[in-house]
């Protein structure tokens, strides 16, 4: 096969004359698709605090507090795997298409859940006894955990 010089010239000059392929992001943005996995949202009215999402989350990003009646997600732990959406028995979780914005402080998004447990019949989700990662324990370790002190930064001068 022969070597040819300047084979890229046509591509380069062609691109020079065409419109750039750039989507100027903050001004315009690429459309998202129906399937795009962005972030988890909850319809808190439907939630019955069954704890299934809490237990099945592969990274432990979701924390459900039955006594305080809150559903919380740590966006910095969520891997958008969609697993909680798949396992949610009441279909109150959904995968939204837009991603979470960056943040300067670590925080959890806490959603209060207006759920009043019906008195007579016992809740089905409470039946399997949690072994090591009980919701209470998981909740307690959340604030302090992995919250390392930044190492002493000795500035250069």
């Amino acid at each position, binding site marked *: 096969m022969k070597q040819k010089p300047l084979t890229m010239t046509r591509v380069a000059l062609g691109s020079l004359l065409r419109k*750039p392929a750039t*989507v100027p992001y903050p001004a315009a943005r*690429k459309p998202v698709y129906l399937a795009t996995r962005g972030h988890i949202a909850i319809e808190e009215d439907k939630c019955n605090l069954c704890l299934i999402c809490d237990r099945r989350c592969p990274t432990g990003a979701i924390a459900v507090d039955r006594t305080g009646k809150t559903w919380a997600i740590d966006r910095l*732990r969520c891997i*958008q795997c969609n697993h909680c959406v798949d396992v949610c028995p009441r279909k109150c979780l959904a995968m939204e298409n837009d*991603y979470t914005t*960056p943040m300067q402080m*670590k925080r959890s998004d806490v959603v209060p859940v207006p759920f009043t447990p019906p008195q007579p019949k016992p809740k089905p989700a409470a039946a399997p006894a949690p072994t090591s990662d009980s919701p209470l324990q998981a909740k307690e370790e959340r604030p302090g955990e992995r919250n390392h002190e930044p190492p002493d930064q000795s500035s250069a001068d």
Partner: protein
Amino acid sequence: MNLFRKSPWIIHYDGASCNGCDIEVLACLTPRYDVERLGIINTGNPKHADILLITGYINEQSQPVVRTIYEQMPDPKVVVAVGICASSGGIFRDCYNTKGGVDSTIPVDIYVPGCAARPESIMDGVVQALDLLERKRKEKKTRRRAIAPTPTSEVPTP
């Protein structure tokens, strides 16, 4: 004029990540996203860089590397943890060889969530970092003035 807003140069270090965020960081440089619009250059040299993008968490072996890169960067500098592994250890935080997110080793200024972090997210994170750069420069200036009335310019080295 806020010059750091106009010309942030980045350096990218791949901690122990799965490469997903790395290729998204690189994708930011390429025509679809083209961060050079914002004056961003991927220098690859810590001494030229203003913003350190780290993907992936830290393990024993990479800890000194990350620390060295951070210390080699001249002030003002900002650290952006890209992806959930860099932010919190992510799905690998239960592995035996993790030390946690980047904040276990160096102070992190911006956390970019996502697995893998989308290029738009990374750009948002970098844009947030720009304001911090200018603020850090001013802080540095006032601190220096407070310590010594005559500004010393060079770091003496043997």
